[in-house]
């Protein structure tokens, strides 16, 4: 039987070892606890980490939680790790934004908004696993519908699509 401290330590281990964001439900299954118990322990642990002079943090992303280094220490970590893949180009990010907000959406619909072709951008986004084919539109030609992936949420550090910033018409100055 695990004591309260040990329960928190167990969550710490799981977050440390999990290769991708892990949900509370998955943690509860591993620990044979109720979801509510895990939620409470996780909140405590997150607080321990994020509010103290520690180098690590617990992030809520892509529907789950993961342990990462705090951004402030990036210059040091970068000296050690393979650098992350290049940030997206502006056109790629613009295309990704249209897909994120309009999904499921076809290539033609994206091109209608951007006013230019997006084939190679879609290929790039598919290769980076940020978008995926989510079905076919039931219109003539049955064009492919695109949507974002779990990796997309992780890529931008979002917990869910609801956390996307709201679309505004006026310039966001």
């Amino acid at each position, binding site marked *: 039987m695990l004591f309260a401290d040990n329960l928190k330590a167990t969550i710490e281990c799981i977050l440390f070892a999990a290769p991708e964001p892990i949900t509370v439900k998955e943690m509860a299954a591993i620990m044979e606890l109720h979801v509510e118990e895990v939620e409470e322990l996780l909140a405590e642990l997150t607080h321990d980490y994020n509010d103290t002079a520690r180098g690590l943090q617990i992030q809520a992303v892509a529907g789950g939680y993961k342990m990462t280094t705090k951004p402030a220490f*990036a210059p040091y970590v970068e000296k050690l790790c393979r650098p992350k893949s290049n940030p997206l180009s502006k056109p790629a990010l613009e295309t990704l934004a249209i897909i994120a907000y309009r999904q499921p959406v076809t290539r033609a619909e994206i091109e209608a908004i951007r006013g230019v072709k997006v084939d190679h951008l879609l290929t790039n986004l598919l290769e980076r696993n940020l978008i995926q084919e989510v079905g076919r539109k039931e219109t003539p030609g049955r064009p492919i519908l695109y949507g974002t992936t779990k990796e997309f949420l992780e890529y931008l550090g979002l917990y869910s699509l609801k956390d996307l910033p709201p679309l505004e018409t006026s310039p966001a100055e």
Partner: protein
Amino acid sequence: MSYKIKLDGFEGPLDLLLHLIEKQELDINDIPIAQITEQYLAYLQAMEQLDLSIASEFLVMGATLLSIKAKMLLPRPSIQAEEGEEPVDPREELIVKLLEYQKYKNVVKELKEKELAQHQVFNHPFNFNGFLADLKPPNPLNNVSPWDLLAVYKQALEAAAVPEPIHEITQETVTVGTQMDYILETLYHNPDGLEFSHLLPDRTSTTRIVVTFLALLELLRLSRIEVYQQTSFGRILIFLNNAGGGQENVVC
């Protein structure tokens, strides 16, 4: 000409138009179309002078702007649609498009910040295999008792006892012809090649082995199949010969 700056920096005609509108702090809902058209076309001209290939989308937009400008010059009543309908602003479609595009263009700034923030955080490269190597492997007989093992063994023995006598009674009728067809068919489904033993069932009669081998020799003579051995004493693989010999009919 100041237009020379960052000509290829525009992702498309909408991007360029928005840039012109924002730079001059124009009201997007009431675009001075003549002014914007002039500036837009000046950009295209500059691009041409720089010998940049202009994407067709830019040209289409230029034409659209000119057509809107022309409609705006017409006296109001003539562009009024059928009775009862509001007069349509020729710019409306373009404005709707620009507003829609602007929404995404604006949000990209915020998404970029999020992207860069995530680029600053790193994961722990946990080594699952290394971790598991230090642990005892899981018990594959977790739910199996010695008695289960006995039961399974008895079943296997019983199953083995039944079919054998039936096989002994059956008279095998194999001919070189049927075996040739069988070999060709089997090889067709196995383009990666087969060994001779694969052409025979698990337990079989000497007759079948001999007849199958004769069939193999015959097919080889007719160049319907090919045989390869990579190294001496290595595996001998049989392939369908797709290159030639296909015309000859199998006669038996």
